[in-house]
């Protein structure tokens, strides 16, 4: 068990997913892998049938409605003065309760080197919230930059298809390096250096308090992602994602993979922001009949939407046992 969590963190920090040797597979997994070898024609028929019954974009719709509603709630709370969710994504009050973004709080604590009670309360509330909801769930279900970036990504993917641009990948480990460096810079300089360039804070504030020059930086980032490197900020830079990723390690809410249902077409890996967490769906890789997707997963549900055979699904750990 502990091993599973460690592997999930190691991959999140930038390590390549470990390939489990076939001899370590469970008997159940071995059996499923064995039958998959022979029944190719059956699988073709199954695939077509599954495709015909596939519901398209269910989670995408739910997620976008949620993301836009939350950000809109921030905006109207101020503009209409209804005071439900006051503040911005870095720190806010929901009906009076402090909510403070974990990474912003960390930056402030490291730069200021003093912690006051309100800061601690707000951080605690948010920590528990995302512990229950899956850590990086914040990224895909709340972060307004994620929304902009995933639409920029569509454009990027289209341009790649048209062979107008090509995707340039980076080593994922660089995000871990950034996380450490931004923490060090906050401690050494006494300024919340990361907050200056954080597109999350900038976009959130621009929505609530009106646009400014800072949006220029966000536009540059998006252009970089469209024309040079797919989802570069979220994949290779953002320390907020990594901070929430840590919270998600032990979260009960995650995407689960069922080997038996999988046709190994790799559609899920094509749409995933963090395809390394879906390494297990490659034919012959899954060591067990069912397994949980790692901490770096943003729980966006794109893979679930795109999977024609229901091999991927949201799951709340423990709920299966209780029910």
């Amino acid at each position, binding site marked *: 068990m502990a091993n599973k969590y460690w592997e999930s963190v190691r991959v999140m920090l930038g390590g390549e997913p470990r390939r489990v040797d076939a001899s370590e597979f469970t008997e159940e997994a071995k059996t499923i892998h064995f039958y998959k070898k022979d029944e190719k024609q059956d699988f073709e028929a199954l695939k077509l049938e599954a495709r015909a019954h596939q519901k398209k974009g269910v989670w995408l719709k739910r997620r976008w409605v949620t993301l836009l509603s939350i950000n809109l709630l921030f905006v109207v*709370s*101020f503009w209409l003065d209804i005071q439900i969710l*006051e*503040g*911005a994504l*870095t*720190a*806010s*009050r929901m009906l009076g309760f*402090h909510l*403070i*973004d974990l990474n*912003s*709080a960390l930056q*402030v604590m490291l*730069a*200021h*080197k*003093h912690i*006051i009670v*309100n*800061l601690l309360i*707000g951080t605690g509330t948010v920590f528990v919230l995302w512990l229950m909801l899956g850590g990086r769930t914040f990224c895909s279900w709340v972060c307004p930059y994620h929304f902009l970036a995933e639409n920029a990504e569509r454009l990027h993917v289209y341009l790649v298809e048209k062979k107008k641009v090509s*995707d*340039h*990948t*980076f*080593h994922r480990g*660089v995000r871990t*390096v*950034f996380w450490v*460096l*931004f923490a060090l*810079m906050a401690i050494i*300089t*006494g*300024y*919340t*250096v*990361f*907050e*200056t*360039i954080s597109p999350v*804070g*900038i976009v959130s*504030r621009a929505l*609530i*308090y009106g646009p*400014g*020059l*800072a949006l*220029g*930086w966000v536009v540059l980032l998006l252009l970089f992602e469209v024309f040079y490197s797919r989802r*570069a900020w979220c994949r*290779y*830079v953002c320390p907020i994602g990594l901070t929430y990723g840590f919270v998600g390690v032990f979260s009960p809410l995650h995407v689960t993979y069922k080997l038996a249902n999988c046709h190994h077409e790799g559609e899920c890996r094509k749409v995933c922001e963090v*395809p390394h967490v879906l390494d297990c769906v490659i034919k012959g890789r899954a060591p067990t009949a069912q397994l949980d997707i790692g901490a770096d997963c943003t729980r966006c549900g794109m893979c679930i939407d795109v999977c024609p055979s229901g091999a991927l699904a949201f799951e709340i750990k423990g709920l299966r046992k209780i029910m």
Partner: protein
Amino acid sequence: MTTEKKPAAPTGVVNKRKLEERRKFLRTMILGAAVLGISTLGYIPVASAWRIRMRPPGALEEADFLASCIKCGQCVQVCPVQAIKLDDIDHGFGVGMPYIDSRKQACDFSCDAVQCILACPTGALVYKKPPYVASRSEMKVANPPILLAKEKDPEPTLNLRERSGLARLARPDACLAVQGKGFKGPARGPDFKGIMRFTEVDRWKPIRLSDHPFDLQLCDLCVRTCPIKGAISLEPVLDKEGKKHMTPTVHEPCLGCGVCEMVCPVEPAAIVVDPRKGWSA
């Protein structure tokens, strides 16, 4: 994407893979350097002390303030006169941090309780500085400041114990009172958007300054609109030729709220607030 496929062993392919790995490594180093470079650009406006900003009441000393503000804008949201604005990225590390442009809209303590301090989740704005942050004795006020609007209340003082700046008659020659002139009409003209609380109109609802015209024999706008008791008065001052002029004189209770700067009818204002300036007798 190419790296995820298994190598098919022929030597040519392997070399290509290695080349791609090397390129990827180089790209990653460049990305790292670029992001770090850009993030430290924010230091330039800070180091060059571009412009000293007037922070909301109760702000910690600038270095502490820049470290502790989480840039959420909750202070902006509670301010009844919308005096607080957030800085843009041309202020480097100060992006998203609150400031007040007193000439456009000053803090007139309309909220009575200094709401922005209550709203601040990180202690960047405080009633009383905790012992572990930097403080200067000249910023502390001698006595709890009395808010004229609630002078008749059982508790007439503000919880605030420090000033955020100090008013100064920067252009005595331009001052209408010094010239012995009166003033008639709205303080900053009919188009001025700034708002202010006048207790004689409505204690809880600030109104536009342009909706509250004055008719004064001798201009004393800065004195009559000052929200703090004993912070400013008109005093007879002798000039070089021995002639007596009524001159706005700032006293120790001044908190640097900036109302005098906002209402001053001459352009540019004869009286201004120096942010972060302390009292020296």
